[in-house]
């Protein structure tokens, strides 16, 4: 007897409730994106809410809806993240590799400062009261971009200009948005010639404000009229691919170095090596 009663009770209870569940499951089923279920499956079901959602399912819904990142479940870790990403089909195909480039060479030495800036020391704040440098187009050097980069792909250089660490940059574009002066652009990684100035000031003014400013002399545009044009007192590269490498020395005659190759050392090294092999 003492054995039977508990067994019976529990059996009846489980039977009751499993039947109830099955009925409810059939009757009350709500149609929804099968992906949600799939993602939910992949999750650990710890329902711990560590993801910031109310439970695994809520998180699954959010992921499918796109309001949460696929790697948002701290319990599941990388494996789960990969699985979820697979379900959602977001595995990144190979895309054109790009990298963020800074379009200013207004270092501490080159660009004259306006005065003793006492405002809030972020670029965005500085920008709204005119900035800390005389040039109102250039980098202010407070590093909003550095802070915005989540991939450690940026650091503030000695000269007061931020430096992009190419290997880490994922071309996420956060810095492009962060810079109040729009000094970043994402460029194909192989592009190696840029204009490092955004100043639209007239030649006299820009020369006064910054030693490295584009002074709109037009030397570069004359060297490659097809690929480089002058617009609003600024040289603009329209088509980097077709710049004749032969013309690069002519372009680099720029009196302020506002245009030129990005990685000069490496290339020159190659050239030198070549010269050596030729000699040998």
């Amino acid at each position, binding site marked *: 007897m003492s054995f039977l009663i508990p067994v019976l*009770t529990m059996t009846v209870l489980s039977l009751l409730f499993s039947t109830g569940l099955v009925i409810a499951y059939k009757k*009350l089923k*709500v149609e929804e994106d099968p992906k949600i279920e799939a993602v939910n499956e992949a999750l650990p079901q710890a329902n711990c*809410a560590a993801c910031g959602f*109310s439970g695994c399912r*809520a998180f699954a819904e959010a992921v499918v809806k796109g309001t949460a990142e696929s790697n948002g479940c701290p319990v599941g870790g990388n494996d789960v993240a990969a699985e979820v990403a697979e379900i959602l089909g977001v595995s990144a195909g190979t895309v054109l590799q790009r990298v963020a480039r800074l379009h200013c060479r207004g270092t501490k030495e080159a660009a004259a400062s306006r005065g003793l800036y006492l405002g809030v020391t972020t670029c965005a704040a500085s920008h709204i009261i005119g900035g800390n440098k005389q040039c109102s187009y250039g980098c202010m050097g407070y590093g909003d971009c550095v802070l915005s980069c989540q991939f450690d792909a940026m650091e503030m250089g000695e000269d007061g200009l931020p430096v992009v660490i190419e290997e880490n940059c994922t071309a996420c574009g956060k810095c492009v948005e962060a810079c109040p002066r729009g000094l970043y652009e994402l460029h194909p990684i192989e592009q190696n010639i840029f204009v490092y100035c955004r100043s639209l000031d007239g030649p006299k003014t820009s020369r006064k404000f910054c030693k490295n400013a584009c002074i709109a002399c037009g030397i570069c545009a004359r060297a490659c009229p097809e690929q480089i044009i002058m617009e609003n007192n600024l040289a603009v590269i329209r088509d980097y691919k077709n710049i004749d490498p032969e013309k690069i020395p002519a372009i680099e005659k720029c009196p302020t170095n506002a245009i030129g190759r990005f990685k000069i050392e490496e290339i020159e090294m190659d050239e030198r090596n070549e010269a050596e092999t030729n000699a040998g």
Partner: protein
Amino acid sequence: MELLALFISAILINNFVLYYFLGICPFLGVSKKLDSAISMGLAVTFVMTITAVISWMINNWILIPYNIGYLQTVAFILVIASLVQLVEMFIRKMSPPLYQALGIYLPLITTNCAIMGLALLAARKYYTFFEAVVFGTGSGIGFTLAIVLMAGIREQLDLADVPEPLKGAGIALIVAGIMALAFTGFSGMIKL
């Protein structure tokens, strides 16, 4: 009067989170935003009330008469889990807005120790039916109070300069500790 005292003491003195340490996971997990904290609190209150009723019935109509108290844990968890799931499906079908507000918290609650703890505590204290219900609702409201206060504080701390390693759970736990201190002011106020 006794019921009122039980109710207040469940909220302020023997607060589920701050005195019994039950439901800490959602208390930390869902207190980052005020809105979700409120929804969570309401959902817990709702489920706790139901649980108090159901577990009382099971305990007093089945387990005690047949003298199989040791099945408490299994029976309670089975019933609570199934019931909450049923309720969830029901709400989802019947009232999508309510589901959006509360329902999504239900699955989380199923396996939440506050609910199970409520059933066990109520059984251990031999509450009468009405006492059990009041205890359930009061505890739910106590949970809601704690989580809503915590969410308010955490939203404000979002703007503060909390040391890096303490951000998130660390500071929340310390706040909970000081909250528990503040709640001790009510100790001894209710004499049942």
